[in-house]
């Protein structure tokens, strides 16, 4: 592992190196970090692009719902191994060849979560959001989750052992859907925000949106932060409070 940024990295990440709280140390830290993006629709694609652009060292991609617009080209089911020929990994590697990009098919999600520092959840179904919530809590991994309902977006970070989990905040979670032209754009915005927050979690840089979720209304362009509390009776996280 190189101890310093290469000449090309100094150039590529130049706009980060002058940022207070970021700098060369932050960029190196990012390069040592890894993020798993689950869900490869419009939302997951946006998150992956901005994570790759920023220089996260390793990116894992998985699309368990198989419905992403950009999901893998058909390929043999090689079981749990890495396949890398889908369009999303190609696009990410072209943008930033320095990022190690692995796309997974049919792999055990618990195992996958264990291989990455942070999970970014961009899945559509409530079922998969709950599953990621459960797996990240069990695996002790931060989860930056977001969903789009129509033209409204919601984003919450779940830090295991700290504050509410996805189930505490959204006990009546329902399947996401995109409504109209704005829905697609809201999905993009939520993905970009998830990349933003994932980097902040990795670098411990300011507000991480744990214990308060972000609510966005695409019809008015307005954002709100909404406080949420851990539910003591939550079957997923009630055993994991700090105190």
């Amino acid at each position, binding site marked *: 592992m190189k101890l310093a940024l290469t000449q090309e990295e100094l150039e*590529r990440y130049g706009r980060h190196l002058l940022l207070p709280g970021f700098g060369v140390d932050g960029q190196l830290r990012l390069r040592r970090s890894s993020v798993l993006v689950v869900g490869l629709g419009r939302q997951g694609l946006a998150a992956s692009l901005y994570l790759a652009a920023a220089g996260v060292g390793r990116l894992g991609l998985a699309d368990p719902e198989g419905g992403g617009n950009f999901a893998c080209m058909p390929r043999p089911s090689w079981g749990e191994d890495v396949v890398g020929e889908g369009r999303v990994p190609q696009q990410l590697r072209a943008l930033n060849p320095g990022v190690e990009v692995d796309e997974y098919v049919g792999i055990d999600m618990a195992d996958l979560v264990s291989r990455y520092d942070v999970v970014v959840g961009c899945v559509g179904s409530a079922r998969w959001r709950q599953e990621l919530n459960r797996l990240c809590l069990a695996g002790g991994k931060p989860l930056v989750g977001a969903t789009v309902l129509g033209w409204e977006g919601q984003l919450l970070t779940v830090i295991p052992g700290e504050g509410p989990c996805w189930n505490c905040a959204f006990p009546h979670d329902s399947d996401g859907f995109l409504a109209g032209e704005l829905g697609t754009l809201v999905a993009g915005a939520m993905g970009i925000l998830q990349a933003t927050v994932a*980097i902040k979690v990795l670098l411990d840089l300011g507000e991480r949106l744990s214990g308060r979720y972000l609510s966005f209304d695409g019809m008015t362009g307005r954002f709100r932060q909404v406080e949420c509390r851990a539910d003591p009776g939550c079957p997923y996280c009630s055993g994991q409070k700090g105190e």
Partner: protein
Amino acid sequence: MRYLRQASAVVVGTGGLGSASSMYLALAGIGRLGLVDGDRVEMSNLQRQVIHSTPDLGRPKVESAADKLREVRPDLQIDLYPVRLTRDNAESILGPYDVVVDACDNFATRYLLNDVCYLLRKPLSYGAVFRFEGQASLFFPGEGPCLRCLFPEPPPAGSVPTCREAGVFGPVPGLIGCLQAMDVVRYLTGRGETYRGRLLLYDARLMTWDEVVLTRDSRCPVCGDGPRITRLADDYGTF
């Protein structure tokens, strides 16, 4: 959707802001997009300008952007202007479009855009980023408020650092550009509320979005009651 397909927008700048606004306007279904940028793709762009790729290094940015837009919208009418916007070409370049999107990175172009859009009665989607912060608003054709209601004159040359000098957090222009695209979609389809009359202030450290009410300043040099600026300046030169 049918109305968006008949509409057009011109995005001035295909950097961090323009990468996102042009792509999301295309994805929303706009009929025609103009792209204005005189620069070529550089390595330091790729940290945030995700419409460009490493193989595009050295290419004119408008061409690189157009390729990616065509991939998602083969039917999109795209007009390329691989030039810097100036007071001499602004009216002819911007004239054919319904909306103008400010996705530039310097004060000279911002003020030129503001003035020419006011004079041409074009709505102008305003977006700006700096370090961890972003701003967005919609300046309304011929009615204000406009940029000069907020900042009547550009800052003295060298007094405000550029993104090159101060840095910018990569996903910030991505979000602002996406919000600009949404605002343009709301404006063109007449649905929802635009950012007209309010300035959105985003802080990516705090994850806050504050809004400041913007009203037309009666003393504004462009859209005020006794405007001082009634035609384009001879020189929007070096700010």
